[in-house]
């Protein structure tokens, strides 16, 4: 009985710790990457939400923000980058293009949604989403991690 209480609370502490220290991956694809940079820039400063350390290597980071159009040529590379990330790992699909192909959905070389390649936790709408929307997505992801409602 005492064992189980200890394990549960450690689990809670781990969830809390994971949620509040997400390290995003510096990975810009297209237009949305500029808004992602704005979100980490001076005015929006999303370091306030415990997610300030942008890492340049997939091995160091646990949050991938797919910011922009996923083309057929880039999709397998995104998959490989996702595979290189260490567990636990989370994906935010930022903007209309990454979520569903956006205005390019009729095109011949655009993947209609990054969720065909990697599992996505939070979708952000907008073309491009404002930095506030991205920050809301981050908060949403953090709340879900803390509440234990993420699958992987």
């Amino acid at each position, binding site marked *: 009985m005492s064992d189980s209480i200890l394990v549960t609370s450690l689990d809670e502490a781990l969830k809390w710790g994971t949620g509040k220290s997400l390290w995003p991956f*510096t*990975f*810009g*694809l*297209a*237009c949305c*990457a*500029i*808004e992602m*940079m*704005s979100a980490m*820039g*001076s*005015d929006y400063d999303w370091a306030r939400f415990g997610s300030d350390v942008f890492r*340049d*290597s*997939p091995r160091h980071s646990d949050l991938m923000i797919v910011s*922009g*159009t996923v*083309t057929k*040529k*880039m999709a397998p*590379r995104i998959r*490989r*980058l996702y595979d*290189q990330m260490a567990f636990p790992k989370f994906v935010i699909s930022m903007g209309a293009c990454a979520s569903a192909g956006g*205005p*390019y959905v*009729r*095109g*011949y*070389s*655009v993947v209609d949604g990054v969720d065909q390649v990697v599992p996505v936790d939070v979708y952000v709408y907008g*073309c*491009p989403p*404002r930095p506030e929307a991205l920050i809301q997505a981050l908060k949403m992801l953090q709340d879900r991690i803390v509440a234990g409602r993420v699958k992987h």
Partner: protein
Amino acid sequence: MMGRIQFPSTGGRGTDMEDKVIEVNFGPQHPSTHGVLRIKVKLDGEIIVDAQPVIGYLHRNAEKLAEMGAYPKGMIYIDRLDYVAALNMELGYVLAVENLMDVQVPERALWIRQMMVELNREASHLIWLGTHGLDMGMLTPFFYCFRERERILRIFDEITGSRLLYNYFAIGGVYSDITPKAIDMIKEWTEDFGTKLEEIQSILGKSYIYVSRTKGVGTLSAEDVLSYGVTGPMQRASGIKRDLRKDSPYLFYDKVNFDVPYRTEGDVYARFLVRIEEMRQSIKIVKQVLEKLPQGDFYNKKYSKPMLVRLKATGESYVPTESPKGEFGIHLIGDGSSIPYRVRIRSPSFANLSSIPTMLKGYKIADLTAAVSSIDPVFGEVDR
């Protein structure tokens, strides 16, 4: 995928040089690629022997999709070409369409366009300056530049209702007039942006490390510039004084006073100085537009929004404009229907980027990020 290094099989020092050439893969995911550029670099020790860029990781079929819808519908794809300077892209498209259809545009709309384009040029150069600083290992300029850029974006937000991709220029004018509040914001911005710019310039330009890492690096000669079709600030940094705003003026660039900065060194530092000076000239242009802005309509009443999709055109037209990256133009061919037959985009970054093999050959691997970021490539436009 990153840093796939094949070490020489012989190993050790003192072997013959051919065995020492190693191949390093740079990108498509790398913090200094400004998007999704991949370069296959061949190295002899630290010296770059050969660098071949691989592009196409953001090929979004802009040309094909623009040929599938009515003329005003093409705007969404044109907007997203050079996404840091979307209004400059829109300008190239609307000028080509208006030229093809003989649309008259009211004077006020043209002045508004000119001011917005110059403001967007500032925003684009600020992004370049911030990320260039990041590539050179400096985090401070990034925050300074983004602080200043947000002020410009707030002006855009007030006028167009959008921060990054505007869809603001319409065939026959602009979609909304400038509000008095926006004019106050622009006036306030023109007054103190000059000093802020000096502050940002001094962070980089007075840093010994920055200057010694950029002077004499990534040099392009004037012959190479012409041979590769390089345009814009890169061309002007290599001693060719060409600016379409001066040479073949469109809008009202012949009625405002500004200089074309140019330098002859052709290296990364010269491009830095040219772009900074261009930003100063843009402030001058915006100030003059505010003084000269006439009253009147902001769009041609004959071309109201619902009838735009029914516009038909024949013939062909190519209108060159000076975007922040270089000469941007759209070659439109109409076949008499309301859908353009061919939309061909001349993208400056594509031509500028093709000069990478010449630009990098013989330099050290550490100079690669400096040289690549000095091109200011935006991949929406390179890959279209």
